[in-house]
């Protein structure tokens, strides 16, 4: 793997006054030992097979999609179109029956620790003024996906939108219908051969094959490797990392990548630059499942940071039909946690007052099941709502730009301070 001494550790006697708590740090070897023992205990405990809906006897009342081959997607579309043709020829117009993805049709299953879709469906008839547009768009998307199947190519969501801008009007509409279609056909969105543009990046101690090419993520320069949009072409993952570090923000990611944090503490660093896209979530899940590494999350200390964490962990409502493939169980909340603000004496000028909207979001989150199941999170969130203060990861830069990589994270790891 990469040369461990690409970047020398700065001298330990550098000014500890400007970087508080630095004197608490033990040597890297000691921290590594702590981490190794944690990782080994973790991988042994997580060998059990993950539960599925069928295990809970929920498969009848909940809907879930699976990866389908191109030919089965094609025949699913074809039989649907034949049905439509029959309907039209008999003079009844036509309609689709589409699983509802509204929030009332979502269910959090604590045993699975993710959101799943219930079985409610809505009928989308052509001959109704409120649904005629969506029905037409659905038919159009079906025919487009059918073409993709015949030609066996991948296109992006943007490509799809541009095939008929006049009908779709804006991309939000074609994207939403695309999710409807994959839900209706019972397949994942990637099985439709439609991908989203690359958003996530990964850097660190990871080697994998992307469409046949071997990628070494320690040798991808500072920016790291963009996470490939089609996960089915990713394989052969190898790593000597001890953990996966999930970072919310691009800025923190760049800091860690440039400081080669993964060489000091062997790890894989991932970010989706804000709300995670499907590809990043699939990739994270794949890493976690194949490498059996603990995932530690570094997000902002605000309600949205926790929300992003929850999307990685339990899935988003929009994509709950595929939560089985998209979620990564057991993500640990490393920081920045509301309690860290005082613990690390983050100065007042770096904290921001929460807006009314923030506080409302925070209170709403407290009602969510995925927060409630973790008493530590509830406590932190309560603290946030009570103090009405938030802080971004960048608040740590007030102690110097490298405080994050040189003091904060090592100390957190040493103390195993995650929830």
């Amino acid at each position, binding site marked *: 793997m990469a040369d461990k001494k690409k970047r020398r550790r700065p001298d330990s006697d550098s000014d500890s006054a400007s970087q508080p708590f630095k004197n608490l740090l033990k040597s890297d070897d000691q921290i590594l030992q702590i981490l190794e023992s944690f990782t080994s205990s973790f991988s042994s405990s997580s060998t059990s097979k993950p539960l599925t809906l069928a295990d809970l006897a929920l498969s009848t009342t909940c809907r879930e999609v699976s990866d389908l081959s191109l030919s089965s997607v094609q025949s699913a579309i074809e039989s649907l179109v034949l049905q*439509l043709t029959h309907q039209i020829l008999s003079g009844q117009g036509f309609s689709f029956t589409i699983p509802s993805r509204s929030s009332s049709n979502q269910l959090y299953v604590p045993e699975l620790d993710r959101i799943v879709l219930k079985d409610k469906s809505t009928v989308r008839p052509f001959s109704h003024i409120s649904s*005629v547009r969506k029905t037409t768009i659905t038919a159009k998307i079906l025919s487009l996906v059918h073409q993709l199947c015949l030609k066996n190519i991948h296109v992006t969501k943007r490509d799809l939108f541009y095939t008929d801008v006049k009908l779709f009007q804006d991309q939000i509409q074609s994207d939403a219908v695309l999710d409807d279609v994959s839900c209706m056909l019972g397949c994942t969105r990637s099985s439709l051969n439609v991908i989203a543009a690359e958003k996530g990046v990964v850097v660190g101690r990871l080697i994998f094959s992307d469409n046949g090419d071997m990628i070494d993520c320690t040798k991808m320069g500072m920016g790291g490797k963009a996470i490939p949009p089609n996960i089915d072409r990713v394989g052969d993952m190898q790593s000597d990392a001890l953990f996966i570090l999930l970072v919310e923000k691009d800025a923190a990611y760049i800091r860690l990548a440039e400081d080669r944090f993964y060489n000091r503490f062997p790890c894989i660093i991932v970010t989706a630059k804000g709300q995670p896209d499907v590809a990043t979530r699939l990739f994270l899940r794949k890493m976690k499942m194949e490498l059996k590494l603990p995932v530690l999350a570094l997000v902002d200390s605000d309600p949205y940071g926790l929300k992003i964490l929850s999307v990685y962990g339990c899935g988003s409502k929009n994509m709950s039909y595929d939560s089985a493939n998209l979620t990564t169980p057991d993500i640990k909340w490393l920081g920045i946690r509301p309690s860290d603000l005082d613990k690390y004496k983050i100065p007042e000028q770096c904290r921001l007052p929460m807006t009314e909207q923030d506080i409302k979001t925070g209170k709403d989150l407290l009602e969510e099941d995925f927060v409630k199941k973790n008493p530590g999170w509830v406590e932190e969130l309560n603290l946030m709502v009570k103090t009405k203060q938030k802080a971004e990861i960048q608040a740590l830069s007030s102690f110097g730009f490298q405080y994050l990589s040189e003091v904060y994270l090592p100390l957190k790891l040493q103390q195993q301070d995650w929830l």
Partner: protein
Amino acid sequence: MESESPVETKKSKSKTPKKAKESILKQKSPAEFFAENKNIAGFDNPGKCLYTTVREFVENALDSAESISELPMIEITIEEIVKSKFNSMIGLVDRERIDEALYDDYETAKAREKRLAKEARAQEIQAKNAALGKKVKEHAISKGAKSRGEASFYRVTCKDNGRGMPHDDIPNMFGRVLSGTKYGLKQTRGKFGLGAKMALIWSKMSTGLPIDISSSMRGQNYISFCRLDIDIHRNVPHIHLHEKRDNKNKWHGAEIQVVIEGNWTTYRSKILHYMRQMAVITPYAQFLFKFVSDTSDKNVTIKFARRTDVMPPVPVETKHHPSSVDILLIKRLIAETSKQNLLQFLQHEFVNIGKPLAERLIGEMGPEFSPKMAVKSLTDQQIVRIHQLFRQAKFDDPSGDCLSPAGEYNLRLGIIKELHPDMVATYSGSAQVFEGHPFIVEAGVSVGGKDVKQGLNIFRFANRIPLLFEQGGDVVTRTALKRISWNNYKINQTQDKIGVFVSIVSTKIPFKGTGKEYIGDDISEIATAVKSAIQQCCIQLKSKIVKKMQAREQQERKRNLSKYIPDATNAVYDVLKEMAKSNSSKKKRYEEGDADILRKVSDHLITKETLTEKLTQHVEKVDYEMALEYATQTGVREEPREDIYLQSLDDKDAESVICMNHDAL
């Protein structure tokens, strides 16, 4: 800013020794104070002065007519007086300029060159446009900026049919600042007795001409005529002429005439807006507005005809609410009261204190108080104690009986007249309380109309006078803009033409700033009441809008559905075609029924047209069924009818109805 400060200190340092004369204790009369700070009363600049003068006269006239329950009839005339005429009026000889370069507006040779070049260029462009056949815009005659000397003067006359004034009181009513009849606790338009006096002070400052007042009271057989100005230093009237004249027409009311400096060009629209909105909120009044000048194309005559003879009741004077008084006020009430002992004083000088409550209050005040003690003997400490108790004790809210809101009917009439909206809803809230003063909020919301601009058009009224300035900070504007989610009521805030009318009446309107120009947004009681009144209107509108949308949907359903037929059939047919291909080439096997269809597709028995036709038929069928259902559901509905007011067509009114001319705006 910072760089300036040292200079300033330096300056002041150098100046202080010079200025160090011993300061003399001077006293200022109220009139002097207001002359120096005339912006407090809305006399900021000549234009605003003209506006405020008109406004004060109109409001006084309305108050006066309403106080005797007479339907107001008010004539306002503004007469432009050019400089030469003004000079001859005051007996000054017009002098020609001799030394041109002495004057501020003197054009140097260089400036003239520049101007001529510019004009030539403009002409060239215009000629080019004309040659190209473009519609030539009337080139605005470049008005040279008015130089300092070029003031315009106006004679403002206001005639009403109100109460009039007692002959002997007239000098004091106009020639003494801060004397007035409206100091009681009562909903009135004016408050401080400043308006007409300020107009007089301004006329004295700008033209030096006195004010002319004619007045007669009901049943008086003479007209009092008074010409006076004000001695600003002593705050006393200075009477030129005070006499009784014949009253042949049995007229009662007042006519006031004043000559002031003003600016009609810049404040024309404000004054007209004011008149128009005044007519909205007082539809029972008749206004005749005239602007007269030498150039006849500038003349304006607008008659705002009376649209109803229903007049809101005269607001009654009320007593103070215990939670709204301060120590000074308690002392004044004690000085003025005719009651002997404390119990009677509490009982009769305040609202919402009955005998039992008064007794309980006295008991609570402490041992040195007793019901029978003489109220005039209360010490200062005891008065403070009473004040403290008034602050803390719980009293019933004052009732809104003493208020006289415009009324939903009047508001509605005004909106319909003003905007000709497609839809209008009005709401009148119940009385609420702010710092012991009752207030009532009424609102009207309209959608659509002619000559209404898109978005929110806000009309604000306080104690039935329109508020035109400082729109941005006003509680109504802010509420309408920020706290109403118009979308919820199917109203599009940017696209629809929305009219929002809010009228607030109270015994004390908490105006912000110096002039009576806006109500602050920091009083939560008023903000909440305004919000809920607007919301109530919106709720009424929503059901109307939804009905309208349904009706429109009915009409457009077929077209909207048919629009999508080509796209839908194309999508389905594209897939069918591909399937038919693979079916005929035997790449894939299909079930018998499906294979049959695919064969027909290959043989062109089922084409795109077949699908389109079938779908069109289906849409027509659905449309027919739904139209039938809609018709049976809605049935025949009748809107409730409203009374309309028809103006009597006797004698001189007949002509006035015909010359009614609201398009002039």
